[in-house]
């Protein structure tokens, strides 16, 4: 857990005061909407179809139980009793009033939570994977670096008015659970040939109208140099990124138009001038940040305690254990995923009651720490194995123990036309119907790992381009149609999916998904050949044929 101090709290308080003044000036007419819009976006305040929406940052997906309780409080007091966890480790409240926002923000600030820079043309929430600090095989805790970047990027005077939004993600594992290759800057912490720890820096990833997979701009930057290098990238982008057309304004377009070699040269020229300046990181600063991350006092435990052995005799617990618990780097502990994808429910939502109960369970079983993943599920990164049966019973009672993590009904979906003013079609009901078709957990297990991503418009907030199956809503004559892609990946093998055919109407989408899954089950070489590998082996044709077969 990152421990906030008086500096962090003071800054948040100052920010709340500023926003209170901005709302006052808006409501008095002193500020026009044109003037106010960018200011409110920089505090995470959107306007959706029915109401304002507040997007709250959860830095690198880490929440304390105290903070989770405050989210529940905001949901109850200012909203309609629930919140939605997003694909960037944030939470959204969909029904909030502008006039209430300063108070809601003050409440959040009291526990170190805020909506700063969750929207707007600035550097957004820096994300990493939800197992950071707990997963085996990490070279360092990537959250330390996400925190370095969070502080660096918060209210940066030079980079608060970029050409467009800017998203950074960090991974410290070989298996990239943070999807760094679809970010504007991706950082992969690793050791070079000489055993030195540093970052591979990738640039220019992003989805939307023109999806790009990020390219490596520098294979190795030392920890000392990583901030100055990022500052060089941002300065080149701030000055040369396009500002004439919002659809061509992301850094991915600049990298594409200049070419990666020329872009890298521009950055290198700038970097040479600043690399030994104030942003060069010395060990004292890195150590200070590292010291503010606390870890549980681990006991020396067996990996197979009697409580677990006994618990496994119950089939329901066993199914959940196999699906939702992963090995921790410390023996005797497990990483627990809390599925927010109940069959038939809107993906990624939690009620205030659930949030409060999860906070209590975190205190009791998980050292008070909760994580949010970009798959829109929650996670307790550290639970003793002996506690798992008891914990499972409680989670099951709350409805957050559906054993479908990483399976076909663990769908990632954007809010879509039910909420969002940018959307062309709905996403949530499509997800709901698909989960109903695959409600049987044995079937879902038989199918195996399968990521379905749904976006209600080309802005791709559901990351459909990189779904194993991607679904994109489009509108034709006021009817909802959906394009289906297969073969996308968001991890270290990141690749954009391939369209299988013409868009299908709303009431046919779940049928098409069933057809695709059946094709896979028929054609896979072995039960353990993953869907994504079968698609790679066979291409799109067999799936297209089945999905569009008449009769």
């Amino acid at each position, binding site marked *: 857990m990152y421990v906030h101090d008086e500096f962090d709290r003071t800054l948040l308080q100052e920010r709340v005061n500023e926003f209170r003044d901005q709302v006052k000036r808006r*409501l008095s007419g002193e500020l026009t909407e044109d003037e106010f819009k960018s200011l409110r976006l920089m505090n995470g305040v959107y306007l959706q179809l029915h*109401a*304002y929406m507040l997007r709250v940052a959860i830095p690198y997906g880490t929440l304390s139980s105290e903070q989770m309780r405050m989210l529940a409080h905001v949901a109850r007091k200012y909203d309609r*009793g629930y919140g939605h966890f997003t694909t960037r480790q944030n939470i959204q409240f969909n029904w909030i009033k502008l006039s209430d926002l300063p108070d809601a923000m003050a409440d959040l600030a009291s526990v170190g939570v805020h909506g700063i820079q969750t929207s707007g043309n600035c550097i957004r929430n820096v994300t990493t994977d939800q197992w950071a600090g707990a997963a085996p095989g990490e070279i360092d805790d990537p959250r330390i670096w996400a925190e370095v970047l969070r502080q660096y990027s918060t209210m940066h005077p030079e980079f608060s008015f970029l050409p467009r939004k800017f998203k950074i993600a960090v991974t410290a594992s070989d298996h990239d659970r943070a999807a760094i290759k679809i970010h504007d800057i991706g950082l992969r912490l690793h050791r070079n040939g000489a055993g030195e720890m540093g970052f591979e820096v990738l640039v220019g990833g992003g989805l939307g109208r023109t999806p790009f997979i990020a390219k490596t701009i520098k294979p190795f930057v030392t920890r000392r140099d990583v901030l100055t290098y990022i500052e060089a990238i941002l300065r080149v982008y701030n000055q040369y990124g396009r500002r004439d057309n919002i659809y061509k304004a992301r850094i991915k377009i600049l990298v594409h138009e200049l070419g990666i070699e020329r872009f890298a040269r521009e950055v290198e020229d700038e970097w040479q001038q600043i690399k030994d300046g104030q942003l060069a990181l010395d060990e004292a600063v890195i150590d200070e940040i590292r010291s503010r991350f606390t870890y549980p006092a681990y006991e020396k435990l067996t990996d197979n305690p009697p409580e677990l052995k006994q618990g496994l005799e119950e089939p329901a617990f066993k199914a959940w254990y196999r699906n939702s618990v992963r090995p921790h780097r410390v023996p005797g502990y497990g990483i627990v995923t809390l599925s927010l994808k109940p069959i038939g429910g809107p993906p990624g939502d939690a009620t205030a009651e659930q949030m409060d109960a999860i906070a209590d369970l975190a205190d009791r079983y998980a050292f008070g720490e909760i994580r949010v993943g970009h798959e829109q599920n929650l996670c307790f990164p550290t639970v003793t194995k002996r506690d798992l049966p008891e914990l499972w019973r409680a989670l099951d009672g709350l409805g957050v123990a559906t054993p479908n993590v990483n399976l076909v009904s663990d769908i990632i979906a954007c809010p879509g036309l039910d909420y969002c003013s940018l959307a062309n079609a709905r996403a949530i009901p499509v997800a709901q119907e698909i989960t109903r078709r695959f409600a049987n957990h044995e079937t879902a297990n038989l199918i195996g790992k399968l990521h379905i991503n749904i976006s209600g418009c080309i802005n791709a907030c559901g990351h459909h381009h990189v779904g194993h199956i991607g679904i994109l809503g489009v509108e034709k004559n006021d009817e909802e149609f959906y394009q289906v892609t297969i073969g996308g990946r968001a991890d270290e093998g990141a690749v954009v999916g391939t369209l299988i055919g013409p868009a299908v109407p709303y009431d046919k989408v779940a049928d098409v998904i069933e057809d695709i899954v059946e094709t896979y089950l028929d054609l896979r070489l072995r039960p353990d050949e993953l869907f994504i590998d079968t698609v790679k082996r066979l291409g799109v044709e067999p799936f297209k044929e089945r999905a569009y077969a008449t009769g």
Partner: protein
Amino acid sequence: MTSPLQQKLKITGPSIVTANRTSDGVVIYRTPSKDWSTELSEAAVVRTADDAKALWAEAIADDLGAVGSYIAPVQIGSDGAIGPGNFRETIRLRGTTFALPASA
């Protein structure tokens, strides 16, 4: 960037002007009496592009009371009742197409 008011406007049938209320984001409709209402039944209906433009200009001028105003289609029933003219407006009027997660 040209103001939307300077651009050529076309409407496809009876239309209204709608927006969100500045203070709380609630969906509102422009009325014939230079005001806003949360009831679609009280919306001013326009049938020509010129009338639509004029109504919209009025709405835009109320920057304090309303945010993001635009012209939206409506359907008029045989009894004269005003109904939403497309799916998006149906959702804005009636809410999400599924039950919200909050417990009762």
